[in-house]
C-alpha cells in the first residue's frame, strides 16, 4: 500500500469584503476548492481584520484584531487560507510584528484575553495553489483550458509588499499569478503596471486619484494587448471594475476590460459551472469575451 498524498485542508478566513462587495470572490473560491478537492473550512466567529482604517488610527487595535482572528483560526485544522490581499497583508504584518516584538505581543494578549501563538502559517490562495497543491496538479485538473485568453495579471500594492513580510514571491518582480494562470492554459501579457497602486481607499474620499491611477493601469493592460485583467484584491477589483466606465468617460478612452478574480478564471478552467462563479455580479460584462473565446 503506498501512502497517498495528504489531503489538503485549510482554515479559511474570508474577511468582510468576501461576504459583501466581493461575494463572487468568495463563491468562486469555495467552488474552485471544491472541484480541486481541497478542504476549506471557515474560521468560526471571525471578525474584521482592521484593514486600512485600524492601523491608521491605532497600531495596537490593528494588531489585536488580527491576533484575535488568528487565535480563532486555530480552532480549524490546517494553515490559514486568505483570499483578500488586504486581509493577507494585515494578518501577515501582525504575525511578523508580534513575532519580533515581545512587548507588543504581551499587550495584544492582554487585549484579546488569550495567548497568541505565531506559528500557524498564513497563506494566500496563490501560494496554496502554486506550492501546496502544485502547478502540475492544477494543470492536470483543467477541464476547459483558457487557451487564447490574454490575461494581464495585476498584483497591486499589497500582495508582495512590504519586503520581508508577506514573502509570497519576489517583491518587485513577482511571477506567481502568471505561473498559476499559465498552468491552466491562459496566455499572460507582459505589461508595465502590474504592481502600481490603483488608488485604493481614495476611491471614496478623492475619486480623482483613482481615475488617474486606475486609468493608467487599464491603459497599460490594453496597450499590452490583454483581453482582461486578473486580480486578487477586492479593492483593486472595485476600482478597476466599478470605476471603469467613469474612467472611460473622463479619459475618453474605451477599455472594455473585464476584471476577474483569479478564482473565477481558475474555476472556469477547472470545470466549475459558469453560473456558480458570480460572473453576473461583474460591472464590465465578461460574457461577450468568454463567448468569443469559447469559454462558456
Amino acid at each position, binding site marked *: 500500500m503506498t501512502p497517498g498524498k495528504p489531503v489538503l485542508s485549510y482554515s479559511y478566513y474570508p474577511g468582510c469584503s468576501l461576504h459583501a462587495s466581493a461575494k463572487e470572490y468568495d463563491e468562486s473560491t469555495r467552488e474552485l476548492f471544491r472541484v480541486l478537492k481541497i478542504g476549506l473550512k471557515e474560521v468560526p466567529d471571525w471578525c474584521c481584520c482592521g484593514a486600512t482604517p485600524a492601523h491608521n488610527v491605532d497600531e495596537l487595535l490593528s494588531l489585536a484584531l488580527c491576533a484575535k482572528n488568528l487565535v480563532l483560526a486555530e480552532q480549524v485544522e490546517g494553515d490559514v487560507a486568505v483570499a483578500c490581499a488586504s486581509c493577507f497583508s494585515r494578518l501577515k504584518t501582525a504575525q511578523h510584528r508580534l513575532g519580533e516584538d515581545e512587548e507588543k505581543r504581551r499587550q495584544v494578549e492582554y487585549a484579546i484575553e488569550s495567548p497568541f501563538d505565531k506559528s500557524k502559517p498564513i497563506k494566500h490562495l496563490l501560494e496554496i495553489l502554486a506550492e501546496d497543491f502544485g502547478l502540475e496538479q492544477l494543470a492536470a485538473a483543467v477541464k476547459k483550458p483558457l487557451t487564447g485568453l490574454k490575461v494581464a495579471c495585476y498584483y497591486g500594492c499589497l500582495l508582495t509588499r512590504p*519586503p520581508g513580510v508577506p514573502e509570497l514571491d*519576489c517583491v518587485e518582480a513577482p511571477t506567481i499569478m502568471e505561473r498559476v494562470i499559465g498552468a491552466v492554459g491562459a496566455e499572460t501579457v507582459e505589461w*508595465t503596471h502590474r504592481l502600481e497602486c490603483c488608488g485604493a481607499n481614495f476611491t471614496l474620499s478623492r475619486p480623482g486619484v483613482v481615475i488617474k491611477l486606475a486609468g493608467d493601469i487599464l491603459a497599460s493592460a490594453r496597450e499590452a494587448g490583454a483581453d482582461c485583467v486578473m486580480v486578487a484584491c477586492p479593492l483593486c477589483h472595485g476600482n478597476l471594475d466599478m470605476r471603469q466606465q467613469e474612467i472611460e468617460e473622463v479619459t475618453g478612452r474605451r477599455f472594455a476590460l473585464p476584471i476577474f478574480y483569479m478564482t473565477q478564471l481558475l474555476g472556469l478552467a477547472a470545470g466549475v459551472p459558469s453560473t456558480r462563479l458570480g460572473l453576473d455580479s461583474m460591472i464590465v460584462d465578461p460574457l461577450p469575451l468568454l463567448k468569443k473565446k469559447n469559454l462558456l
Partner: protein
Amino acid sequence: MSRIGVFVCHCGENISRTVDVERVAEAARGLFGVAYATDYKYMCSDPGQTLLKKAVVEHNLDGVVVAACSPRMHEKTFRKAVQSVGLNPYLCEMANIREHCSWVHEDREEATAKAIDIATMLVERVRRNKQLAPITVPVTKRALVIGGGIAGIQAALDIADCGHQVVLVEREPSIGGHMAQLSETFPTLDCSQCILTPKMVDVANHPNITLHTYSEIEQVDGYIGNFAVKIRKKARSVDMSKCTGCGVCVSKCPQKKIPNAFDRNLGTRSAIYVPFPQAVPNTPVIDRENCTWFQSGKCGVCAKVCGPGAIDYTQQDEFIVESVGAIIVATGFKLYDISEKPKGSPIKGYGEFGHGKIPDVIDGLTFERLASASGPTGGKILRPSDGKEPKAVVFIQCVGSRAREKGISYCSKICCMYTAKHTMLYKHKVHDGQAYVFFMDARTPGKGYDEFWRRSIEQEEAVYIRGMVSRLYQKGDKVVVMGSDIAVGIQVEIEADLVVLATAVQPREGADLLAQKLGISYDQYHFYSEAHAKLRPVECATAGIYLAGACQGPKDIPDSVSQASAAAAKVLTLFSKEQLEREPIVATVNEHLCVGCLACKKVCPYGAVEEKELRDRQGNLLKTVAWVNPGVCAGCGTCQATCPSKSVELDGYTDEQIIAQIEAL
C-alpha cells in the same frame, strides 16, 4: 620569595568611577609575594611611568602587575617601561580592570571585589612568569602585491623605487584595473588613461618589479617576513618572450563577435585579443572558450600569420613559487548588478528596475565606456538599444547602496561624485540634452568635491531631484522613470532616453576565497578587515599582510592611491630591519615527556609543528618527538590543550600559571 609591584590605575574616571582603586591597592599589599602596591590617576602618563620605574628600582621588584586597561591597549607601554630599568619585559603583566570590570559593571562594591580578584590572579601568574627573550626571524626583503589596479600599481612602484624587489600579480591579461576603463576623473576632469598609463609603463619597465599578468594566487604558506606564495600563471597561448605586440594576429582573427568585457559588453573583440590599446603587457591572450581552434581544432589563422611564431596552442597553466616577506592585497571592487538573485540570497536584485533587462538602463561604468574616447562609440554618448543620442538622461544614485531591504546598508562613497561628473560629461557632449539625477543625499566630502558637485547643477544645469525611483519600464522607445520628489512632495514621471544607475561598490568575486588562502578576515560583505579602523587602517590583523584600495571598502582614486602608499610605507618599515623580532609567546615541547603521537601537529592551524628525531651519539634513533618552529608559531595554545601527555607548554601561559590563577579566585 617574589618581590612584585602592583600598580592600580584610575584611568581618569574610567576605572575609579566604579572601582575603589585605593582598596584594590590596599588589598594587593596584603598578597603573598607583593612588595609594593600603589594607585595613580593615569599610569600610562609620563609621571605614571616614572613612578612605576622608580618603584621597580627602589623596591628591587622582580615582577610587575599593572591593574588598568586591556593588554591590547598598554601592555607594550609598560613592558617597555620596566625594560628600561633592567627588568625582563615579560615579567610585567596587565590586570584588565577596565574593559573586563569597570566598564561593564555598575555596582561599586561588586566591581571592586572583582577588580581585587583580577589583580590577585595576575599576581599569582607573575610569580610564575619566566624571563623570555624575543624570537628573531630573518626578513625576505621582497614584496608581493596582489592586484594590478591603481592601488596595486602605486604600492608596487613605491616599494620598487626604494630598491626592493616586488612581485605584482594581476588576474586579467593587463594591469590597469577599473581606472583604465574610466573616461575622465573627478574633480579635475583629467583623462583617466592619460594619468594612469605612464604608471602602467613604469611598472613594466621597472627593474625591481616582476609582473605576472593573467595569473592568480593558488596557495599562501609561511608568515611575516617569510611567505611562500604559489602562483598560477594561466596559459596565454602566446609565448611572451617571442611576441612583439605587432597585433597582426588580432586583426586577422576571424572570430570577432565576442562581447568585449572591457567595454562592458557594448562592443566586440576577437578571440585572440589585447583588452585595450594601452594594455601592459601589450601581449595578446587567446580566450580559449571562444577560439575556433580550441573548440573545433580548425582555424589556426593566428599561428599562420604570426611572424615570430609566438602562438603556442599547447601552452599549459604554469605554477611558480615566489618567496616574499610581505603581501599587499589590492584586489579592488566590482559593481553590483541589479539582476535577479537566487532565492534566499542576502543581496536582492531590482525587479522594479527590470532586473537589468531594459537595454537602455545601464550602470555607471558602462556610461564611462560610452563617454571614453577609446570606448565602443568613440566617445559619443549613444544609447545601447538603437545607437541614438539620448536627449533626456536620468541618473539614479544609491542603487543597491544604503538600501537595507536590498541587503547592502553601506554607502558606496564614490557615486555622488561620479554621477555629478557624468552629468557634466553628458552636457559637454550633448549640448541640448537634459540630465536628471535622483538622489538621497549628496555626499561630497573631499578637496574640491562640493564645488565640483555645485558646478554640475549651476553651470551644467543638471536637475537634481531628492527622492528615489520606484519603477522603470519600457514604453515605446522611452524608459519611463517613476519617482518621487520629496522636497516638493510630489510624484515625478520622466520619459528618459537613457537611464544610468549608480550601482553599489562590492568587493571582487572570490574575495572571500582569497582571504581564506591568506588567512585574513573580512566583513559580511567580503570587504577585507583592517587591524584597527582608525589607527591601523592599512594593516591586516595577520602580520605581514597589508591592504590597499577598494578591497577594504569603497574608495575613489585619491583615497586608493594614498592607502597604497601607506601600505607601501608599512612594508618598507618592515624591510628596514634585517631581523624581525617576534613575541616569544610560543609553544615549546618537553622532549622527555613527548611520546611522539603528534596530535599537536594535526591541530596546529599554522603548520608550526614538525617531527624531530632524537638520536644517540652513534646515530641510532631513540624516538620521534614534536618540535615547534618558533618562527611560525602564533601562540594560540591549541597544541597545549590537545597534548595527551601534557608535554607542550605555551611560554607565558603554562598550565601551572593558569591553574594558579584559577586557584587564586
